[in-house]
């Protein structure tokens, strides 16, 4: 049970960091998990499946699979809780529960971080320093809103919608749960949430936190399973609101399923973000931003800066700096506190990254990877940079969802904007320049939900997040995010 992949040493340095693994003894992995329905852990009727540690392929636990009937039970429990307890409750009291959950997330932060890294493959540095603190921040932020909705600028007396059916992805299992559950509860809705098939463990630990917080039964229900379970949640007739984060392909089918019903829908889908580096950018920090943009969470980020648009006159300098920097990234055991790049979440995802990378090479782009040993077991892909990419290449158009960067060049601000917007997606973008007026001029013209200036992949609960075009619709976070869960608030 304690298999850990070795951290390959940096061959040229006399400074070999000794392994610094976070202890996994803090998490108590049950051999099997049920569903969380109406405040209880219950058995499911579907065929159970296993969740593995992507860094070692070790089986972590057996997970229940919710059938249509199980989902129905969960939705009924959520409806009951909505009409009897959670809906009628004084908003200030709802806020107290959310504050309690937020504090419990902080108290059990280490447990959540270790479990997240085990189940997802992401480095403990990121789950410990980013995912878990941000998840707690979302509950704190929305707890504050619970009794102030009249003043959110969404019209007088906004009312909750009812039961929210929520389906979340595997890249940020706990954080996406917080993004979905916190605003739903703060606005008075109840929730049926389906975590991703490959990363259900932190959602189930969150269910325990709900019990610990004495949250009334049925307010939060967690149903585990694969695509069919998600479909059952989305298509259930008694669900008032559907929220989905995941692939554009699945998002489309959900939009079709919801069309013609009274259900409200928000979608947060794929992206192919442009990270634009002008010649006057602070180069060292821009390189950090490029690394943060595409290699954070192994590139499993819907708003990852996967297209680097660099001004032609500094291309060589930026690429040389970037390659040197990538050479210092440490890939290996996700539980080692010094690991920068962890494992790819699943064999399927690894296959897709490999396929798209091979296509990139076949199209004529130049592939570069650092000299980097990969562990023998588990799912691994080294950080990869494609140069000489043209906007016509698939590697510049398709979302890879992995540590693969495509580098394009531009000559003028107009060309940068045209190339950045030349995408079916529009979730995020980055602009790097020391010139303030250029930041404003360029960001104004970028069709992207979030634009970072001299930064990338920075998140905050107060800042609305969402996309243009095939990156979906609706916003999460901020005052705008509340609108998706309120009636009379359009």
């Amino acid at each position, binding site marked *: 049970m304690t298999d850990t992949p070795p951290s390959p040493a940096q061959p040229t340095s006399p400074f070999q960091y000794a392994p610094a693994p976070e202890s996994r003894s803090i998490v108590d992995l049950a051999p099997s998990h049920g569903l969380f329905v109406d405040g209880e852990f219950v058995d499911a009727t579907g065929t159970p499946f296993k969740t593995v540690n992507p860094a070692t392929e070790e089986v972590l636990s057996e997970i229940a699979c919710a059938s249509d009937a199980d989902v129905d039970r969960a939705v009924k429990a959520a409806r009951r809780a909505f009409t009897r307890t959670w809906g009628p409750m004084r908003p200030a009291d709802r806020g107290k529960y959310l504050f309690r959950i937020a504090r419990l997330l902080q108290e059990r932060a280490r447990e959540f971080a270790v479990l997240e890294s085990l189940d997802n493959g992401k480095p403990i540095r990121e789950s410990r320093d980013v995912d878990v603190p941000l998840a707690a921040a979302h509950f704190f932020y929305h707890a504050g809103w619970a009794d102030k909705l009249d003043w959110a600028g969404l019209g007088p007396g906004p009312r909750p919608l009812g039961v929210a059916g929520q389906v979340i992805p595997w890249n940020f299992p706990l954080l996406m749960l917080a993004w979905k559950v916190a605003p739903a509860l703060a606005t008075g809705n109840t929730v049926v949430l389906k975590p991703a098939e490959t990363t259900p463990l932190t959602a189930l630990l969150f269910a325990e936190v709900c019990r610990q917080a004495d949250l009334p039964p049925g307010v939060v229900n967690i149903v585990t399973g694969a695509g069919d379970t998600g479909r059952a949640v989305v298509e259930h007739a008694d669900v008032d609101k559907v929220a989905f984060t995941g692939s554009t392909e699945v998002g489309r089918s959900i939009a079709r399923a919801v069309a013609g019903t009274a259900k409200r829908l928000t979608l947060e889908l794929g992206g192919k973000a442009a990270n634009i580096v002008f010649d006057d950018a602070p180069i060292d920090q821009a390189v950090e931003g490029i690394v943060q943009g595409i290699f954070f969470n192994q590139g499993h980020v819907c708003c990852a800066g996967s297209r680097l648009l660099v001004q032609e006159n500094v291309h060589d300098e930026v690429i040389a700096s970037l390659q040197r920097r990538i050479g210092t990234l440490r890939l290996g055991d996700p539980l080692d*506190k010094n690991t920068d790049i962890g494992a790819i979440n699943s064999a399927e995802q690894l296959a897709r990254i490999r396929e798209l990378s091979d296509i990139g090479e076949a199209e004529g782009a130049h592939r570069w990877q650092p000299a980097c040993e990969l562990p023998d077991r588990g799912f691994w892909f080294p950080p990869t940079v494609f140069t000489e990419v043209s906007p016509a290449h698939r590697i510049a158009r398709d979302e890879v969802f992995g540590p693969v960067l495509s580098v394009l060049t531009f000559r003028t601000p107009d060309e940068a904007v045209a190339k950045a917007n030349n995408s079916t997606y529009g979730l995020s973008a980055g602009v790097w320049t020391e010139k303030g007026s250029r930041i404003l001029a360029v960001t104004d013209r970028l069709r992207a939900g979030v634009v970072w200036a001299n930064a990338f992949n920075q998140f905050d609960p107060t800042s609305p997040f969402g996309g243009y075009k095939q990156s979906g619709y609706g916003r999460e976070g901020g005052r705008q995010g509340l609108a998706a869960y309120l009636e009379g608030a359009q």
Partner: protein
Amino acid sequence: MTHVLDPDAPAAGIAPRRQPPAPYGDVTRSDAAFRAFLHGLPGVDQVGAEARAAVLASRSIKTTAKAWAIDTAISMIDLTTLEGADTPGRVRSLAAKARRPDPTDPTCPPVAAVCVYGDLAGVAKEALAGTGIAVAAVATAFPSGRASRAVKLADVRDAVANGADEIDMVIDRGAFLAGRYLDVFDEVVAVKEACSRPDGAAPAHLKVILETGELVTLDNVRRASWLAMLAGGDFIKTSTGKISPAATLPVCLVMMEAVRDFRAATGRQVGVKPAGGIRTTKDAIRHLVLVNEVAGPDWLTPDWFRIGASSLLNDLLLQRQKLHTGHYSGPDHVSVD
């Protein structure tokens, strides 16, 4: 009556300026050209630099790596006493500690240098004879640098004559902040020349103290670093230790980037010395991590990286004893100096 049509034209009667190394040979041809060059260096985004330094500071260094880092840090220390009350006795006592930092453990490496005021360089030289430990002397009206150039150069020559192997000079921050970059450049060049010895022996190593706490912005830190390197400084050093803030990780980050880029451009390697404010083993290790990941392992030797400190050594020794014995001892288990 003559009119100066070319502002870049050198004034008549002044010795030609010492040229910076290729490919920067002409950037000091005029004040305007030098300012344009220094202000054309890539900017530093302060938020980004601080974030990067914070990530590097969160590296977890354990056991074998820690043992290596502690010994390396000890071997990089410029053990320093810069008090008005310094006496020959105190310098000799410090020299004894420099040779054998931990008298109970002969495997403990000696420090790199002992750093004193110029008038005591001779005492230190004698006390350290035959040990390989260098004598560093602060000069140029340290720490303020507020004296005429003739006085500063005399200060340097005096320290060199007293046997100093290394000269720690301060730049004229007033001139730098006023934008008189060529004045600062010329002064570093002059000090570097004053480091040579009349008998033809190897000149003293020149460390240029930027006093980054008074330069304030990271853009200024980068510009001052380049200025000092172009003028021939062998080391760039953060601080005198008399001004707060002294050495910080973001400042050291920018200086490591500067020496890395300078070597890539000119082929010449310059060392870095953070000084002041590094008091704990944790701080020292964070700096080593930064050196390792920003500039690379080539700088991880006392030839290219020094730590200016006085109280740091004892904390390193206590941590070293802890690694060897498994438990903490206490301040009485290391010598006061």
